Each structure stands twice: as C-alpha cells, then as structure tokens.
C-alpha cells in the first residue's frame, strides 16, 4: 500500500453519511506529492540558474513549468470534484476468494475523470477512469480477508491525475439510506478435502446405505464453490463453458443434522471450514439439513435462502466483527 491513510482535518472527522454523496470543494483536500516537492526543488534550482546566467528564456520556461504545476493542481481537484459516490451491496464470498467492496462513482459532468482510486486500511484498489456522464464501479480489493463481516468503514478516494505532482483526496464513511453501513460478508473457507456427509439421523438404514452406494443420477447443474470435485461431470464440463456438477436423487428421505460436534477437526476455524463444506455439499445434493452451532441453531431447511442463512451463521460464528 502506498498511502495507508489519507489525513483529514481533525476538527472535521468524517462521519457516517448515507449514500449517495457528492464530492464538493469542502470535502476535498489537496497536497503536493513527494514528486511534487521534488519538482518544486527542481524549479527552484532552475530559477537560481536563470538568475546566475541571466537567461531570460530560462526564467520564462521555469515560470512556465511552475504555472503548469499550479494549473495541474486545479485539474487534480477538478478530477474528483462533483463525483457522486454511493456504496454498492457487495456479494458475500468465501475466505480466500477475492473479496471486493464496491463503490459506484457517478460522473454527472461533461468531463471525463481519470485514474481515480480508493484507499482503505485493508484493501487495494485499481485506479479507474469514469466516462462522461457514466458510472463506474470502484472496487476495493481486501487483502487476506478473513471470515466474518468486513465493514467498508472509513475509506479514502483520491486522484493524482494529471501530473502526479498533487494528490487530491477525500475521506468518507458511507451507509445506505437505512443508515446501515456497507461491507462484505466473508464465509469460512470450505474445507479442501471432501469428507462424506455425516450419517443422517432419522433416516432408515437402507437409505443411508443407498446413499453411499450412489443414488440415481437426476441431472447436472452449474458448479458452485464448495462442490466436491468427485461430483463434477468432467466429460460434460469439457463440452460446456462451465464446470458442471452431477445431481442425485433419492436423498429426500434423510434428515441431515450438521452440528459442531460432528466435525472431526478440533480447531474452531477448521471446524467451521468443515461445516461449510458439508453445508455446501448438502445443498448441492439437495438434501434438507439443519445446522447446530454452539449458541445458534438453524432448523431443517432446504434451498438457497436456507443455505445463505447457514453460511451467514457460520461466517459470524463467535461474532467476528458482526453486523446484525
């Protein structure tokens, strides 16, 4: 990270504001960069040379370069001025995947904006351009983000365009209209190795036996993170653009109870990974399941909403920086 923190005026600390907000002159700060300081020194040297050798043109071009730097300062501020920013809902991801916090920048003016970036204590951002009258998503990529809720929190938006001699920035904290802060939820990383699902409780032994023998193949669906590689239909996937997972029927009768104690691992995160893997596997196999964590119980269910509920419970287990 080049600029870990962008300063703001201490008597005007940024506070939680609801999006969208428009960057006006009162929000923008500007200071020369290190390169700008070096450039100033260079100009000073040139001026001394011009005086010493009495070169009028050296004066003129030194002043011209200085003028260019000053005008560039206005342009740098202009590059951010008037942008409308709103935080966007970010898709939850699994730990280890790239977690991106999105911010929509709307450029209502007739001026293209160049090289605008975000700064955040725990993320990096690719600078991007915003076309005239258009919108661009500025993505803040979290580095080594761990399981749990990551609030966007206080972040900076900056630009050094056009010359890199000045950096203009603003420090903001955004919420949506319900005053809910923005952030991204990161699910635990699914365990890499696929242990079979624990035995279903309440199902008869035949059903359990038939499960291990293999059920009737019912069809294919698109691969989801967490599907076991064994169920990937490699041949079908080769013909298609996506990875495909085989689906099996005959699992309806079983009631799968996934619980904290069933995971073979002892360490908390490893257990959560294991449970995540199972939850995904169960969902992939269209098995109804319930999830029991210490202090949290989710009843039997099936489907996307149920899956999300379980994954969120796993992500927030032990309350890491929880929102909600």
């Amino acid at each position, binding site marked *: 990270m080049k600029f870990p923190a962008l300063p703001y005026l201490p008597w005007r600390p940024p506070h939680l504001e609801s999006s969208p907000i428009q960057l006006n002159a009162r929000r923008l700060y500007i200071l020369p960069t290190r390169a700008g300081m*070096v450039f100033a020194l260079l100009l000073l040297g040139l001026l001394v040379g*011009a005086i*010493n050798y009495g070169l009028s043109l050296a004066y003129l071009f030194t002043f011209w370069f200085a003028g260019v730097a000053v005008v560039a300062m206005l342009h740098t501020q202009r590059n951010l001025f008037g942008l409308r920013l709103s935080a966007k809902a970010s898709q939850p991801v699994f730990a280890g995947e790239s977690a991106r916090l999105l911010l929509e920048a709307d450029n209502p003016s007739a001026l293209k904006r160049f090289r605008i970036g975000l700064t955040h204590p725990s993320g990096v951002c690719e600078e991007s351009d915003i076309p005239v009258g258009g919108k661009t998503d500025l993505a803040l990529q979290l580095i080594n983000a761990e399981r749990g809720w990551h609030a966007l929190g206080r972040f900076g938006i900056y630009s050094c365009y056009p010359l890199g001699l000045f950096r203009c920035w603003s420090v903001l904290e955004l919420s949506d209209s319900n005053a809910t802060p923005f952030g991204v939820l990161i699910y635990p990383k699914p365990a890499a190795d696929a242990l079979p699902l624990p035995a279903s409780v309440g199902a008869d032994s035949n059903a359990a036996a038939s499960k291990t023998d293999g059920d009737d193949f019912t069809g294919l669906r698109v691969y989801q993170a967490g599907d076991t590689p064994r169920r990937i239909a490699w041949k079908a996937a080769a013909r298609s653009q996506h990875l495909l997972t085989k689906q099996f029927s005959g699992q309806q009768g079983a009631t799968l109870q996934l619980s904290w104690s069933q995971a073979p691992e002892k360490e908390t995160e490893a257990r959560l990974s294991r449970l995540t893997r199972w939850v995904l596997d169960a969902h992939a196999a269209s098995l109804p399941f319930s999830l029991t964590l210490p202090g949290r119980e989710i009843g039997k269910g099936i489907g996307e909403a149920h899956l999300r509920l379980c994954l969120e419970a796993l992500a927030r287990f032990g309350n890491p920086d929880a929102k909600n």
Partner: protein
Amino acid sequence: MPRIDLNTPLLAPLLWLILPLALVLAPHALDLPIWISLSWLVFAMLSVFSTQRKKTWSGGMKMLLSLAGVAGVLLQYGTVIGPQGGVALLVFLSGAKLLEIQTTRDRLGLLFVGCFLLVAYFLNSQSLLMAGYMVFAAGALVAAMIANVQISAQTSAQKNTPSSPQPSPQPAPELRATLGMAGRLLVQALPLALLLFLLFPRLQGPLWGLPQQGTAQTGLSDRMSPGDFGQLTLSDEIAFRVEFSTPPPSPSALYWRGPVLWDFDGRTWQTRFAVPTTPVRGEASGQPIAYAITLEPHRMRWLFLLGLPRERLPSLPNMETTLGPDLQWMSKNPINQRLRYQINADLDYRLEPDGLSAATRNRTLALPEGNPQARALAEQWANQRSDAQAIVNQALAHFRKEAFFYSLKPPLLGENSVDDFLFVSRRGFCEHYASAFVVLMRAAGIPARVVTGYQGGELNPLGDYWIVRQRDAHAWAEVWLPNLGWTRVDPTAAVAPNRVERGLNAALPAGERQAGLMNLNANWLMPLRQRWDLINNQWNQWVLGYNQDRQREFLARLNPFLSTWQGMAWGLAAAGGALLLIASLWAIPHLARVKRDPASLLYTRFCLKLQRHGIVRGDAEGAADFAQRAAQLRPDMAKPIHLITQLYLGLRYDRAEADKLAQLKQRVNAFKP
C-alpha cells in the same frame, strides 16, 4: 532480426519516455561531443530491445557504464560540473538510466531531468526559433508526465494484487487525449508564466562566477597579424545593433571604435601592456549624435563607441568599465550577456590636439628591425616634405596610384611582411593596408597606431536601426598631426572606396563576391531578412534583454509603485490570485454542466413549437395537463400532441428505451402545428 512490436503494453511506458527526451536532447546534440549523442541513441535502442525480450541489465554493468560516462566527460571537459561538463554528463546518464527504468518514480525522475536539460539548453542559444522548438519539447515532457500517471495506475495495481488472477487490462494512455491535456495545461499556464516573467523581481546575476564559455567567433581580436592568415572568415553574425535618436551620419562616417593596437613586433600588432589611464583629452567640434547600442555577447572585454562621448560614459549594471586616453572602452570582465548602452557623442572631435607625452610619442613611433624597403620609402617621403599632412597624403596617393588590389584571399607574406606586401604581393584587405600604412608613418616620423572595430552597417528600414555584422570588422590607422590631434586615416578607402561607402561585397573583385553575404540593394530576399531581423531585435530587446533595468523601466511606465520590490510582490500576489480565481471559476461551472436528458430536450423542442403558435406551457403546468389544454386549443393536432406527451412521460417516468426515444424524436420532428 526479431521484429519489434511498438504497441506492446511493455513498450508504451518506455516510448513515452524516450521520445520526449529525444526531443529535448536533439538540440543539445549539436553542441555535445558526438560520442555522447551516439551512446544516448544506443542506450535508447538497447532499452527497447531488452524490454522487448524482458531482459534486465546487471548492476555491475550499469555501474561500469556510469563510470565510463564520468571518465569520458572528464577527459572531454576536465570537469563533471558546470554548464558544459555537467550537462554532458547528465545527458549521458539519462541515456544509461533508460536501461533500468522500472518504476513510476524512475520515469518521473527522468522526465524531471528532461525539464532541467530543456532549460539548460538556453545556455547555448536563446534564439526565437529555439524557443519555439522548446515549447513543443516542453509539451512533450508534460504529456509524458500525464502518460506516466496513467501508466502507473496499471503497473502498481498489477504489482499490489497478486491474488487477483487477471488484472483487467488497462488501456494505454490515448495519444490524442494525453497530448490534448498537455496542450491545455501549457496554454492555461501561460498567463501565469507571463505574469511571473514580467513581475518576478529580476536579480542581477551572477550569483557565482560565470565559467569561461567557448569562444565566440568574432571578426575582431586583440591582435592582428596581416599575412599570417590566407583567408578572412566572413560571418553574417551580428556584432551589435544601433538605434540613432539623432539623424544618423552617412555610412562612410560609421567607424565603430574598438580595440586600439599600439605595438608592432614585425608581424603582429597588439597592445602589449596597458595604456596608462589618464583622462581623455578631447575637444568636440560638432555634429552631436545620440545612439543606443545593443551589443551581442562576444566574450571579449571591449565595448564599441562612435565619436567622442559628451559626458561621462553610462555606468553599466554590474560591470566595471574604463575609458582609456586612446578612446578605448574596456570592461573589466568578458561580456557574456547582451548589453545595451546609450551614448551622447560628437562625431567630429580632436583627440589630444595639444601634444603627446614623451612616452606616448615614443611608443607610437617605435618600429622593430626589418622591412628596409618600406623604411626607405617613408624616409624618402619625409625628406621630400616637411608637413606631416602632406606625407599622409603622399602615402595615400601611393596606395591609390600603384597597382594595389583589395582581396580577401591574399597570398601569405614572408619575413618582412610589410615590404612583401608593399612591393611584391600588393593584394590584401584592411589589416594589410592599415598595418603597412602605420609602419610607413612611423618610419616617416609621424606617430601612428592601428585602430580596429567595425565600419559601416546596414540600415533596417522597418525598425529604423542599424545592424553591424562580424563581416563589417575593419582596421584603420590613426596618425597624430599637430593641432589636429589623432586623425583617422583609412588606407583601405584609398584602394577600395566602395568598401567604406557600400560595404564589403561591393569592394570585392567579381570572383570573390560572396553569395551568402547580404547586399542591401541586390537581394530580393532582403525585405524578408530585414523583417526577420526586426523580429529578432524585438525579441532580444524585450524578451532576452528583460533585465533588472528593463523591468524597472517597463513597470514604472505602468505604475511607479510597481517598479519597487513591494510593488512587484503585491502585483504578483494580486494578479496571480486573480488569474487562479478566474481559472477555478471557469473550471467549476464547466463541471456542473449536467448532462441533459435527451427526452427532455426533445420535449422542450415540442413545447417551443407550440409556443410559436401562442400555446405556452405554464411554469407549474404538468406535461399531461398541458397536453389536455393544448389539444383543446388545437383540436386538429390533438392526436400528435397526446402521442408525444405519452412517449415523453413514458421515457421520463417509466423505462427509457432506445426505440421509444427514436419514436419521440421522429414525432417531434414531424410535429407541425
């Protein structure tokens, strides 16, 4: 040889560096030793190759290169600092640095070096053309800085996010947009630059010693050896320009007095030791003139005068000057800057008419051994006539009557150079005639000395000033006559009167005339060249010559307060602040211009069409209500009115669809109430 694809993303940053730097360095190449320019080019090519092949150069190699550069510059200049060695080394190292450009900071640093070298070039030349060229070079540098910011966004993002599998490919900086931005920055900065140029208090340099610069080519020197040089170099370079505020004298009276040569050793005229500094003893006898000379820096110490200065000579800023009794005006230090001075003088005067001191007399009569024939001739004249003036006339008549020729390519002369010239070759230019004449006079017992300077000049009628060029350099003689004092005698005029009356070219035999030399009447290019010189003169006077004095003078004309330090500071602050305010005010409404919705624009046009027929939409009237009312007023148009309103409302408040917009456009265009 592998093909080089210049469009690869790897090469773009490098090309954005090499090309602007090459633009800046191209004029330097004319003044730098060839090996530096060549190695720079080689470095540039190598860097392209190695980037193409993703090859890096070892640290030892780079160190070796730097050391080689330092050693080479040391050998060439004897120093690695200062305006020559320093610039040469910087150029060399900027080339070597191309081989290891890795980061944005490296590139920006190199562009800063480019800015430095651009300004440093003005040590060599400050001509109008070069200034124009450098504007473009500066534009290229600024554009490269803009491109660098855009490139940096790509590379830093790629470096910082190793986890992201494929950094989205960033477009390379667009050439036109980047150049356009650079142009805009330069144009917007120009008012600020001009303001600083005018108002920034000028200090009189130098702050530290000016190093000796390369000697300039001048037509004059402090020694004169007729017969040693077979050919006189003629140069159109300008020595100085003169503006007369009184009616100018005739060209044949324009003898611009420079160094006076007192001593002769048989071959060479020079002033071997300084003339004692006594005040000038002169009497003015008429024809007052006033003129201002703008002297080009000639890196010598003398200044030029016409006539006998009336009062004290002007004191020049930061220069110590002395006026010798021989009317030789010298500065203490070499003249390295263009200089302007104003003189009030009398064209007719007598110098030391009341007699010579014994020392001066002896010195101006001294003759070394040799040249027996010349001595014999002079003694013969001295015996025939007692009157000094008559002897002078006899000598001039000798030059006129005998077969002497004016030539710029005379044969070399032997040991007794004066005898050789007077009795054998009889061909030569002003130096030969002046030298021979003074030797003859001294041999005849008349005190005489050689005076060098410039003769004549060329009037530029456009600007009403005279241009004196290096090829107008001239040498003549001065003899001391009782009661008249030192009297100018120009033996060259006796041989080639045209030289004095119509300039050098007219005096030359047909075979020797120089096509490149300007001839006032015969050259159809003359008006153009005069105009060009006029522009150059203005440039010199007002841009290059804008020094402390000029600044004070100029600002005092605007407002006396402005010409003081405080005035300049206030002026700068006020005008600079105003400029910035204007710039930001002009910039911000530009930003606030919100893109209008195309549907609204079309609807406005529809309303305007109705308005022309007296149906005006009220300020608070909704579109639907307005449609109702309009349809009642114009039942014949009810159908299109409702259709357009529906389309508009749909576009505004429902979903914007492209085909609906096209429909609306078509209907509004077809709507003719």
